[in-house]
């Protein structure tokens, strides 16, 4: 279908410390015992998109991700890994690989998207409107209805909760205004030209940008070339394209002229114009078309491009893993309501050894080779592979990654415990994140703290 897929997998995310580390880059962060990148790749594979470019920040991370992909998706996907320097942003990452982009349209997916919205729907909308950019919007997930509630240490996560203000046209097909994150503090500035052309704008704050875009390649490359200060797709490139949709510079429309054949006589050019007029008259004009018309009805030289949206239906699941809270939510949902997202290669291994009187509640997932002692309780939690859990341990609403040792009598609530952590006896953790390799001493009690090994 002439689409090229770029997965922006990211690298080390600051929002997710201490969960991610050098050894465990963000794309490999396990969600229900399965790296988060797997969800995106699996979904793309389902859609028959087997040619991917995965962009990873940082070389070490790229090596790790590459090794994982080649181990998991061998013979199933054709994946190329590109390593880009850290902190160049999403736009920078695309700029770095832009000379590898050749297809007519580029589908850009964030590697941390856990969703069941088929990418084909976005692509189809993009093609149908012949848009410069199409973005997927989904309703903002209800975050954190955990019993424990999100408090204290999650301030950071809360502040970063993505607030979007999105302006749509009445038919809900075109994007007229988008402001994300920090911009909201300021007054919203809406182009008068756009407002005038459309006549009516619907402002929504219940939608968020799912970070799945379809770009026209020529447009994307031009923008990245010309605006070399742009860092982020979401905060720079997309708003720029939306703002300039009615005064789009000639650069955005250069390709159609290039496509026309070189050997054209005047008559055939007339015919071309004729055909395009028939086609244009036959379709219901979008406001772009009406705007670019001169008052006398002839099409003018005003250049426009379309910014379309695909709004995922409210029944579909679509969340980005970009904060610890989101991480918890996704873990909960994936084992609970949205368990259809779990790809088949994620079936639980040989069932773990359980001690006597140990109960494992619903919506739990236990990795292979984990051992649990007597009289343990596990509720709504995920426990990774090869964990050793002592007796009288209570794990509620938590995520325990691989190779974790938990001593007797620990109580863990609403926490994330990374790989190779050692919890000694009678540790009580509530709403904590424990970084990889950390050792929690016996009898300690923590509440809403983030524990991690000191950087050397």
């Amino acid at each position, binding site marked *: 279908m*002439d689409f090229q897929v770029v997965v922006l997998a990211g690298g080390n995310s600051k929002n997710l410390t201490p969960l991610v580390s050098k050894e465990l880059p963000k794309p490999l962060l396990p969600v229900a015992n399965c790296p988060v990148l797997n969800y995106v790749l699996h979904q793309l594979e389902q*859609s*028959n998109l087997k040619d991917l470019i995965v962009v990873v920040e940082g070389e070490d991370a790229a090596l790790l991700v590459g090794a994982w992909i080649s181990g998991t998706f061998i*013979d199933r996907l054709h*994946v190329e890994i590109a390593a880009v320097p850290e902190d160049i942003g999403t736009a920078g990452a695309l700029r770095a690989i832009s000379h590898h982009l*050749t297809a007519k349209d580029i589908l850009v997916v964030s590697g941390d998207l856990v969703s069941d919205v088929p990418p084909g729907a976005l692509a189809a909308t993009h093609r149908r409107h012949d848009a410069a950019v199409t973005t997927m919007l989904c309703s903002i997930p209800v975050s954190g209805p955990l019993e424990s509630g999100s408090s204290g240490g999650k301030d950071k996560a809360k502040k970063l909760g993505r607030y979007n203000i999105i302006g749509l046209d009445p038919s809900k097909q075109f994007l007229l205004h988008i402001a994300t994150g920090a911009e909201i503090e300021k007054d919203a500035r809406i182009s008068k030209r756009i407002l005038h052309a459309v006549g009516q704008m619907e402002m929504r704050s219940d939608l968020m940008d799912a970070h799945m875009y379809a770009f026209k390649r020529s447009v994307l490359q031009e923008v990245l070339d010309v605006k070399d200060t742009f860092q982020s797709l979401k905060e720079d490139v997309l708003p720029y394209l939306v703002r300039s949709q009615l005064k789009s510079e000639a650069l955005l429309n250069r390709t159609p002229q290039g496509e026309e054949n070189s050997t054209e006589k005047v008559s055939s050019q007339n015919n071309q114009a004729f055909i395009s007029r028939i086609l244009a008259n036959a*379709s219901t004009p979008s406001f772009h078309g009406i705007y670019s018309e001169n008052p006398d009805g002839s099409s003018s030289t005003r250049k426009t491009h379309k910014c379309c949206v695909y709004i995922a239906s409210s029944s579909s699941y679509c969340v980005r893993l970009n904060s610890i809270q989101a991480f918890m939510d996704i873990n909960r949902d994936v084992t609970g309501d949205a368990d259809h997202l779990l790809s088949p290669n994620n079936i639980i291994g040989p069932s773990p050894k359980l001690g006597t009187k140990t109960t494992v509640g619903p919506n739990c997932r236990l990795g292979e080779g984990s051992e649990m002692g007597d009289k343990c309780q596990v509720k709504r939690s995920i426990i990774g592979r090869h964990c050793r859990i002592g007796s009288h341990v209570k794990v509620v609403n938590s995520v325990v990654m691989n190779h974790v040792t938990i001593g007797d009598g620990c109580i863990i609530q609403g926490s994330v415990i990374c790989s190779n952590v050692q919890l000694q006896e009678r540790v009580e953790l509530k709403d904590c994140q424990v970084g990889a390799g950390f050792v929690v001493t016996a009898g300690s009690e923590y509440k809403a703290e983030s524990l991690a090994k000191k950087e050397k």
Partner: protein
Amino acid sequence: MDPRRTARTVSDPKVRQVGFFTPAPPERSISDPPRFQDPIQPPSPSPTQVNDHSPSGNSLSPVMIPPAHHHSDNFLRTALQVTSPTKAFSYSAKTVTIPPENEDVASSFSPGRKVVSAKSPSSFPGVKASSVPASELTTVSVVNLPPGISEKAGGASVEVQNDRPVSAKTLKEKTSKAERRALQEAQRAAKAAAKAEGTKASSAASKVVTSANTKPSKAAKSSSQKNDGSQVAASEKKGGDRAPEKDRKKDAPHPRMQYDDKSRVEKAKKRAVVKQTEARNRVELFRHLPQYEHGTQLPDLETKFFELDPMHPAVYKVGLQYLSGDIRGGNARCIAMFQAFKEAIKDYSTPPEKTLIRDLTARISSYVSFLIECRPLSISMGNAIKFLKNRIAKLPLALSESEAKSTLMLDIDRFINEKIILSEKVIVKHAVTKIQDGDVLLTYGASSVVEMILLHAHELGKHFHVVVVDSRPKLEGQLLLRRLVRKGLSCTYTHVNAVSCIMQDVTRVFLGASSVLSNGTVYSRVGTACVAMVAHAFRVPVLVCCEAYKFHERVQLDSICFNELGNPDAISKVQGREEINYLDGLVNQENLQLLNLIYDATPSDYVSMIITDYGMIPPTSVPVIVREYRRDHLWS
């Protein structure tokens, strides 16, 4: 032609007594036929005539031995491969063209086999290059494809899918002669039965089909079926390696499938690309037409965007646009379709062991059936497709692939230019002579030709007034009105309800048409018949403007046999007026049937003149045009 002609034939307005909303009592239909046999005397073409210009299969030479141009084909393919290095790069480890520092990675892939490297991080030397401009890609996972794939220049995964069955070829060929024979027999029997049933159904539905009329339609149908059949047979003879397309083609729904025939509908459903849920309350009288829940097709098709491998993106896009109503109008749909086909032909490359002529025909057929699923074909499109297939079949065998493709693309361009654009210009030239100063012209809906006529007359400095009559739910007239007013024409806008009031002042009615049938019936946007009848009652001449490529040899007496049903929601809801919600909750009631017809048929008695690219003709001369047109252009 005398504009104020006296009422020629019709003494009483022919009101069809067809039970629209009551399930038709069977005994009525017995009493009806005599009433309907006499009034219209269609100059129905005699059967010999029909045979004369029907395709009758002779245009397709039975078996064609591929000439030895495979060699040049291969040559071309490899040449193409060279010109698209990125594609080659992404497909196989054999042809990796990564810059030198990556060479050890590349060489460690054994071609076409599993990736050996990339197990340990140390085997990624290429990743080092991490400065912003030159980031290199490292292939970490390769799909294990059969080695032939890497030779594909077209590159799309289309070929990936199509190629696999080649290995199954030998298996399939082993079916014994007897088996094949039996299969053929069964198919033939099924076809005959279906045909009988089909005609029965259509006659039952229309209740007015006289014996004279069934003949040509049947002849046409059988000939077109024969057409299909002969192609299929020929391809079967060639060898059973025609993979999915053949299946698609064989069961491709007949453009006029009878949707009340359950077995056929089931069959069509199995193969359909677009999943369609049938409407719950189907209008009784129109059961033979596809009635689907609207609004369910688009999202479903969208989700399958990447899964429809054999579909060319351009064709897919056009299909989506048909489905969503982004493109409408006979000419526009036809042009859009042909442009998409042109793209598809440009990207086409003959698979190995196939001939271009047959494979491309099958390919086009699969595209067409996809488009039919998106929206039923218009007659203009049907004619255009016939033209294209004929051109493909007529390609000289000696032509190389690139030559054949360029010939076809030129043919498509020629068709668009000559049959659509030039003929519109000619029609405008003719029609403008009929507009005089002080005229009040009425038009209905939005016809591209009529719009051009009006604009041209305005440019010539004629002073006239335009009445644009419109109707819900499409309100296409508003778009036309907008363009006319912008050009400075003086216009009146009204809805079809008021047409009898405004008709007094009108001096001429200009109408567009979706098709003109050989008995002079004008098949056009629903409401046209009403406008024409009112005009006739007021003795206002009705001029129908229609390009000759939209003419069809079919005979149709009413708008029931063949029609298209639109979205019933469109008539039950009023956009922008939420307070009109009287039908809310009633839509799914058993005893309510919503009918939103798209087309209607205007009997020739209400048409004073048809303006076409061959000049201005009375509706009785349509068969002549149909015949001459076929002979001159389609079958030459």
